[in-house]
């Protein structure tokens, strides 16, 4: 797989193909699998993503601790006019839905991780469904997202314990932004700018879940991560470029993660987890989990 997005963009543009194509070719070469076989596996992931969205929107799930649940249904069922357009509201609802399913031990696709699993399916299927884009194009978009995530894994990290939430929902926002930009007709270069634009907006984001559970703020951070991805897509498709190349933005995320205090890396020692209310809720809910 590629170790820089710049190389992937150069290859795609030299061949006159998309990032999805060079990603599938590289995966096929690395793993000794046919492109059809890889697409089939991505199609299965897509079906699970759609299943999780549908399941979460029902609104009857509560997390293990009872801290989160029901909010995807709340936003999807809001009958007031959307503040920023119907697809925006729809994408937020889908991101919450997947993450509520995850918190309730439902089946999701960890893409790139379970804690950041809401962003990518919400952005990709939300935008595709709004425009009547079919599953083949979504599978290509997943390949592009996988390429971006692989570069992040190589150059920085995809683990909140290592790099904070910027490495989970932040990386997911970059993956979603680049993949959706290409899905909506952007060039590989535009997709790369979308990655940079999304990821710059999440630099420094800490991982501070109450009680160490993948619940609060994780569920909401997937929704705000999706919103950042949408902003990046809108800018990139308008031809806006970001002066710092995506690879260097990703490296910066890795550097910040390495320098981030351990309290902000999934240990529940800092951030929202360490607030008076955060500590109280975690104490109460952990007792409840032990009883259940």
């Amino acid at each position, binding site marked *: *797989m590629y170790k820089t997005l710049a190389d992937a963009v150069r290859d795609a543009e030299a061949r006159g193909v998309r990032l999805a194509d060079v*990603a599938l070719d590289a995966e096929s070469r690395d793993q000794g699998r046919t492109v059809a076989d890889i697409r089939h596996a991505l199609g299965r992931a897509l079906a699970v993503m759609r299943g999780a969205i549908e399941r979460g929107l029902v609104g009857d799930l509560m997390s293990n601790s009872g801290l989160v649940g029901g909010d995807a249904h709340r936003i999807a069922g809001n009958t007031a006019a959307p503040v920023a357009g119907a697809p925006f509201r729809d994408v937020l609802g889908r991101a919450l839905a997947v993450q509520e399913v995850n918190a309730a031990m439902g*089946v999701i696709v960890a893409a790139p991780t379970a804690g950041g699993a809401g962003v990518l399916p919400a952005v990709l299927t939300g935008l595709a469904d709004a425009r009547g884009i079919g599953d083949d194009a979504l599978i290509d978009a997943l390949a592009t997202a996988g390429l971006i995530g692989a570069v992040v894994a190589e150059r920085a990290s995809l683990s909140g314990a290592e790099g904070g939430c910027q490495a989970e929902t932040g990386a997911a926002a970059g993956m979603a932004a680049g993949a959706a930009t290409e899905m909506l007709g952007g060039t590989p270069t535009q997709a790369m700018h979308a990655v940079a634009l999304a990821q710059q907006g999440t630099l420094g984001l800490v991982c501070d879940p109450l009680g160490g559970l993948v*619940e609060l703020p994780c569920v909401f951070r997937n929704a705000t991560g999706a919103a950042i991805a949408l902003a990046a897509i809108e800018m990139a498709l308008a031809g806006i470029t970001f002066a710092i190349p995506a690879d260097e933005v990703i490296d910066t995320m890795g550097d910040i993660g390495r320098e981030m205090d351990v309290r902000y890396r999934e240990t529940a020692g800092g951030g929202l987890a360490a607030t008076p209310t955060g500590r109280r809720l975690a104490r109460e809910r952990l007792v409840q989990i032990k009883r259940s």
Partner: protein
Amino acid sequence: MVSLLDIIGPVMVGPSSSHTAGACRLGLLARGLVGGTPDRALVELHGSFARTGEGHGTDKAIVGGLMGFRPDDERIRTALEIAEREGLAYRFEKTSLDDEHEIHPNTVRLTVERGDRRSVMQGSSLGAGRVLVSEIDGFPVEFTGNHDTIVLVAEDVKGSIARIASILSDRSINIATLRLSRQHRGGDAFMVIEVDDPPTEAVRDEIRALPWVKWAFRLDKVSA
């Protein structure tokens, strides 16, 4: 080498790729070391597994893995009840396996018993569902479950590796990696063989029938 399907995956029961999916995979590998669902299991949780495991269903995921459930199996949610019904006697302990800085924070030691076979496996969940087994029955090992894997203990006789390699090659099974460790010269040798093609039970039986092989097990790969 990072694979696209590691990034867009695994398909799994939530909520944590390290504390749930990875924990399940470690359970699956330990199950393989006794050739099926254990009768008894002691699960010693270390570090973050011990601290936040309950909230992440680490306990259910490990016990589910011991019963052969894969990370995407929704039965994981009720794995503890199923285990009690099916006669898997499990026990959890929180422990500190070593100095925190030397051992990965998400580490578990599993002592599993099935019939008269007993095995102790230590492994860690590295993030994104990836796992690493670091010790089996006191022998240091290092494998990931990304391949089908054959593990065996043999007396330290000359030509043992060549004999086993030829059994595999006769069956068109390609060896990806082979690691050998032993506690001292002339002592038992522990072999971990990762293979590209799934070995059948017959291959395992043929290896086990070698007079100098004390035991051999076949661990199905646990990655997607």
